[in-house]
């Protein structure tokens, strides 16, 4: 189901790192030996003569992160990002697997497109990539794709991300078809008749700036509708990029009713608000759903803590410089996020470290993928992080082809030192040095 360009299996000893895996309960300084790409030994004072040793002292070793929501822009939008740069960006952020959205050109809505994409990923992807297929042809919201064939070709699930499935009847049919096909149905929730031509959160800031607003109810009303449909059909849905407090409430209620519903929140919605937009109308802060208010941000944090929100996903959305270097209203929606995900949430200092680590890989299970674990016999999917390292976002450039990161210029704490994905070393920290 996941594809990547094979990396030589690692044989390394990571010495003295503080190993933290909330799922296995590990939370202490330990050595971890990796042999042939698998975790061979975990313990104190391990020795491995003749094997590369990575100094982990003062650093933390976590299970690798998994992002269930990224845009790699292939096929057709390679001027924004490509599989190589997108997965390199992911590796630099500590991710060991990502799930790519199908809103490309053409849309991933047929088996031939999906097959060629997977083939390309096997040549270019630095870390394992899974692909979603679209629910409807061309994301038009009208006709279902050949979901069974797409699933057989390796689609992890289905989504029209970037657009809502506006017609309730179409979503219902997709959920009925899910009983045959399986696979998660992931939903971008937004009522276009409420969003209108909005470009930011509707509230005090948009009123002051004269910008058309996207009201919170645009998201929450569609979540309520779709939760009801999923409950009726017994289907399984995943709500993408939650932004509003009303939405957290709608999910909490649906879960209490027994609906099979999961959801994600992005690092930018967890750490920034619409006030930041007012500062200088930076188009990198324009995304959909928009940054909302402090009360919404607090509701998302509470939702993560009480389990209403299942995972953190970046919605990494690269755009070319010329596309973003325009007035706010003309700019496309989206910010990159892979390289800053952990550091942004960690720097905010509002969530326990173990919870951040858990939520950054919890997306795997929701996409029917194995969850990385630090345990003997498991493939090495690890990230080594220096929690004390401070860095300015963008000062050393980006691994992504795109520079539209909403955290640009901010000082963050926590830097990925090394990433090991599917048993191979895929990222080592490097510095640009002026000469």
């Amino acid at each position, binding site marked *: 189901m996941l594809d990547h360009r094979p990396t030589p299996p690692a044989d390394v000893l990571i010495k003295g790192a503080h190993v933290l895996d909330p799922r296995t309960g590990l939370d202490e300084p330990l050595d971890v030996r990796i042999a042939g790409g698998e975790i061979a030994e975990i313990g104190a004072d391990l020795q491995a003569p003749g094997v590369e040793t990575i100094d982990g002292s003062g650093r933390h070793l976590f299970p690798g992160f998994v992002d269930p929501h990224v845009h790699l822009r292939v096929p057709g939008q390679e001027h924004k990002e490509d599989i190589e740069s997108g997965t390199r960006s992911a590796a630099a952020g500590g991710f060991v697997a990502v799930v790519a959205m199908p809103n490309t050109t053409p849309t991933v809505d047929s088996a031939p497109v999906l097959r060629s994409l997977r083939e390309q990923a096997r040549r270019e992807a630095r870390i394992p990539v899974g692909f979603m297929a679209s629910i409807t042809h061309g994301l038009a919201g009208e006709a279902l794709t050949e979901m069974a064939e797409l699933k057989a070709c390796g689609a992890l699930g289905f989504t029209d991300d970037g657009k809502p499935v506006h017609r309730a009847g179409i979503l219902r049919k997709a959920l009925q078809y899910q009983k045959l096909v399986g696979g998660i149905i992931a939903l971008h929730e937004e009522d276009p008749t409420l969003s209108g031509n909005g470009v930011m959160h509707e509230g005090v800031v948009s009123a002051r*700036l*004269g910008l058309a607003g996207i009201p919170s109810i645009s998201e929450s009303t569609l979540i309520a509708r779709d939760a009801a449909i999923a409950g009726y059909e017994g289907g399984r849905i995943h709500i993408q990029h939650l932004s509003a407090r009303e939405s957290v409430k709608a999910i909490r209620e649906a879960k209490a009713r027994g609906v099979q519903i999961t959801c994600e929140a992005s690092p930018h919605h967890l750490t920034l608000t619409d006030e930041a937009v007012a500062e200088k*109308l930076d188009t990198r802060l324009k995304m959909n759903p928009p940054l909302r208010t402090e009360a919404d941000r607090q509701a998302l944090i509470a939702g993560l803590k009480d389990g209403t929100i299942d995972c953190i996903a970046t919605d990494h959305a690269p755009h070319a410089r010329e596309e973003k*270097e325009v007035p706010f209203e003309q700019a496309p929606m989206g910010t990159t996020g892979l390289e800053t995900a952990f550091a942004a949430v960690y720097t905010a200092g509002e969530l326990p470290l173990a919870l951040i680590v858990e939520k950054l890989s919890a997306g795997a299970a929701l996409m029917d993928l194995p969850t990385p674990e630090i345990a003997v016999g498991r493939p090495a999917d690890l990230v080594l992080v220096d929690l004390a390292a401070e860095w300015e976002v963008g000062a050393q450039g980006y691994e992504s082809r795109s520079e539209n990161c909403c955290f*640009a210029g901010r000082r963050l704490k926590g830097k990925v030192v090394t990433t090991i994905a599917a048993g191979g070393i895929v990222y080592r920290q490097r510095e640009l040095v002026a000469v």
Partner: protein
Amino acid sequence: MRHLLSIEDLDREAIERILDRAKTFTDVSEREIKKVPALRGRRVLNLFYEASTRTRSSFELAAKSLSADVINFAASGSAVDKGESLKDTVQTLSAYRPDLICIRTPFVGAAQLVAGWTTASVVNAGDGKHEHPTQALLDVYTLRERVGRLEGLNIWIVGDITHSRVARSCILAFQTMGAKVTVAGPPTLIPRGMEAMCDVAYDLDRLNEADVVYALRMQHERMTDSFVPSLREYASVYQIDGRRLGPRQVLMHPGPVNRGVELAAEVIDSPQAVIGQQVEAGVVVRMAVLYELLTGRANPKPALTPAPLTA
């Protein structure tokens, strides 16, 4: 002061300084030779991405009255039609070394962006639905001429607040000058969150409390988007007519007026209306703004380097 991008760039003292200077320019228009050499040799570029008659012509007249050289650049019929981006257009025109660029665009924040791309001073002549600071200044000027101080005045702005950059700049300017501002209009045309800026009313029942009634233009295209059911209904609820306008109240309008929609003919032609004075004030106030930005700038300009987005 280098740019005028928002009324928020000005405190009360700065507004008074500019308007006092505007007052001294009034006699220029009365002379046989309507020109003073204050800005001789300076280049002013009018860059208009939206149709405008009075703002563009009054900026041009203001610049010429101060002996500056003016280039008018309209977006249609230019490289913009060939797909040139705002950034490239501004950087290209900046190569002509203008001292000041007046820019109007349909996009919020465009003037601020332009200020980062040029060494010239930038005056925001309207950026989308965001701000139109020189309009607010000429409105304050007109009110000072008519009633003296704005301190303690009760000003009602009536009409389509959502789509009005005039409203946003005027609210800020009037409040800075010590007035109390209320906006009134259909609930569909007052944005959610407006109450954080000023008082909000949905009908004109308390209009008699106002010392000044500022009516906004009702755009015809708002009908098609169902903001109001019909012009007829809008007029019946919100039109300022002889019945609603009290004898002590001052009536303002940024123009162009839709006679019979937001204003009845009898009030436009009434002695309470200062609509003509507003237009007249436009030239002297814009002269004062140009003078403020282009003189006394002792420091050398920074080198022509495009500012990064993070600047």
